[in-house]
């Protein structure tokens, strides 16, 4: 039995049975909290009836103009609860929210060696449209945003027909293009305190 609900800070105190999996990275606190602050609705968790965390998804909306899209930052399901369709349900929530935000597509990065995940994304209708050499190219000491081994090939997947901007899947709305969190109007962003 699975309850799907928004992720809360306190979930971090007991998400180890998910995170001890070698393909799942544990990030610094600020990483999770920044996602909760920027894109709270994109961070959802699957919980069992006894309160065990079964898996979670983290994502965001980003990009400018026609590149405005949903992005899957992390998707993971504890080994005990795999092949029950949880990842599929979590992806469905992310896609639904992306649609509400009028995103044009959803993309994600996955390691070429992660065959299971690639199989799954293909099954969910995603296509591999680019292979990048190095996804993570920031400061190697910035642990929070790292996690990817450098120099490893990565695939970028997204729903079919998204690679060419001209062809969006018909069900993705193509209304007004909005950048930034469209519901939070009225602020002149340039005047806000910069992150120090």
């Amino acid at each position, binding site marked *: *039995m*699975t*309850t*799907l*609900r928004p992720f809360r*800070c*306190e979930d971090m*105190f*007991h998400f*180890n*049975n998910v*995170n*001890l999996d*070698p*393909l*799942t*990275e*544990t990030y*610094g*606190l*600020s990483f999770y*909290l*920044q996602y*909760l*602050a920027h894109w*709270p*609705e994109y961070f959802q968790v699957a919980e*069992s009836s*006894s309160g*065990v965390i079964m898996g979670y998804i983290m994502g965001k909306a980003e990009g400018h103009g026609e590149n405005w899209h949903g992005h899957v930052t*992390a998707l*993971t399901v504890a*080994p*005990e*609860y795999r*092949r*029950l*369709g949880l990842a599929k*349900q979590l992806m469905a*929530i992310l896609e*639904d929210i992306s649609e*509400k*935000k009028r995103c044009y597509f959803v993309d994600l990065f996955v*390691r070429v060696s992660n065959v299971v995940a690639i199989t799954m994304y293909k099954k969910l209708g995603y296509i591999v449209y680019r292979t990048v050499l190095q996804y993570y190219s920031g400061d190697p*000491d910035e*642990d929070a945003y790292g996690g*990817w*081994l450098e120099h490893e090939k990565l695939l970028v997947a997204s729903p079919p027909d998204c690679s060419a901007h001209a062809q969006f899947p018909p069900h993705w709305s193509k209304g007004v293009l909005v950048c930034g*969190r*469209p*519901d*939070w*109007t*009225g*602020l002149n962003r340039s*005047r*806000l*305190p910069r*992150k*120090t």
Partner: protein
Amino acid sequence: MAGRVHVDDSVIERRLRPLRGTNKKAVQEADKVLRKQPALHCARVLKGLALLRLGRRGECEALVAAVTKDAPTDEATLQALTICYREMHTPDQICRVYENAVKGEPGNEELLSHLFMSYVRVGDYKNQHQAAMKLYKLKPKNPYYFWAVMSHVMQAHKLGDAKSKEVCLLLAERMVNNFVKNGKIEAEAEVMTYLHILETQGKYEEALAVVDGPLASRVIHQPGNFLPLRRAHYHTRLKHWAQAATVYRDLITQEPDNWQHYVEYIRSVIHLTTEASPAEDPIAEAAEFLSGVRRKAVEERNKDRGPVLGLLQLAKALQEAGWGGRIEALCGDPLDLLLSYIEGYGDKMCCYGDLVNFLALVPGARVGELLGRVRALCRLSASGVPLDETHTANENPAFANGVVKTPTTALNTGRKMVTRISGATGAARGVYERCDMKHIQLDTLGHVLALQALDTGSYTTAAAIFSNTLKFFMANYKDTSDPLISSYKYGSLTRIPEFVEFRERLSNSLHFATVTAEQMLLDLTSDVSSHGQLVEAVQQMDIDPATDRTDWHHLTDNRDLAVMNTWEPPHRCLQEEDIVASVAADTALLRLRNLTLRLVGAACALTHPPHHHNTLSSTANKENR
């Protein structure tokens, strides 16, 4: 998304070297600039920052204090000062810097919003409110107004007594009501804040009116079930069982695998039954509905487990309500229900967890029957070994062997096994390192190997773990401050109380307090070899023999004790009493360790007059409280 492999100290040292060089160079460059323009604020602060990073805190303090006094207003200097004070762990100084700057340029929106954020960093909600209102007067933008609203909410959160809490929340509510009346509400964030304020006050009628009214149309980016779930929750709180049941029923139809809907639906139906008139039978209706959901799922042959378990949950609720006699007629034979689930999911790990709560529905006399029927579902070899389609009995051991040797499986199990290793610290450390435990795991899983290493005399292991652990806790304040600021910027206002609670739970961690004490004792026993060194060490640690600063009433047990599945019978599982007893024992040990430290401190004070010296760790600790 694999973790980075463990980086050894020599690598860190190599990385830091050029940085030290850079700081030295920065001081030289700053001096060059200052020779030409001695009054240039920004250069003076940057020089201070470089000095600080070189460990020359005293010189840095003098430099930045002088600049702060001149009340600079240019962005570059202000930013440099902000970084400097943050690195010195004195965020309250940042407030002073911006207070002075705003005095100089009262009409500057950017400076004011920086001032607001500086109050956010230190949790000064009263001043936060004032800064937000000044901003709103300057530029009437909704977010500024809601920053002020949220400041009231946080003030309420902070205050201890119920009366003042109530007043603050009322003030917040009144501010929002004002806005609603004048039709000024624009964004989802504002509606969410409104709901949060009403919920915190228990005003569910009012909250219901919001989700049923025009403001609900502003909520557009939440998951599809957000509004119905709120509505159902408010109905439940108001004991409107019939309405609650209707909403949950619709939710089950839309999301047949989301378990919370079943639990709440059945709970409302049970409540409703006690109030229903003799003509209606809500339970029978519910049973019919749940049977229908189940039939549909079976026909569609999908993977949803909720529909298969719904009737079992109803049976369990009936039994708990004392209506066990109706189970058979309404839900069918629980044994059949259990078996039909096992047929579908018996080969999955979730099977046990899903069913364990329903096993009590099987009377003792029928346990044998259940086991016999489960056995009949498995194909067994002549010797009783389970078979499956892919492997014959002879292949099974080879397959199992292969699985265990697969690196992933081995690592995964190894990671969890570390919790079971005791005594063999060397081996445990190896596994521990491969687990790549870090960040919050240093708190939640720190109990598996930190003090154990000390107890077995593995001081280097202990010191390494302690140092990582303390680094994590010291950074908590900064790590949670930036997201707090982001919440104000991006409008996730309702997350703010959650972030603050999270921060408090971390800084009150029993493990944090324990490791702090143990680290000090370890330093005193391993690094000190003369009386002079002892006196110096004790001074650096800022031990106050007269008082213990531990907030004993708020210490939290953050251990994650459910990492491994257990199939033990209930009496052999970890019980609540065991956990309580272990926390009590750990707390008692901490008292003893703190007392020991204070005794050492007192002994030193008898030979040398106390001389207060603020070390980085002691100030960071205060900041974390």
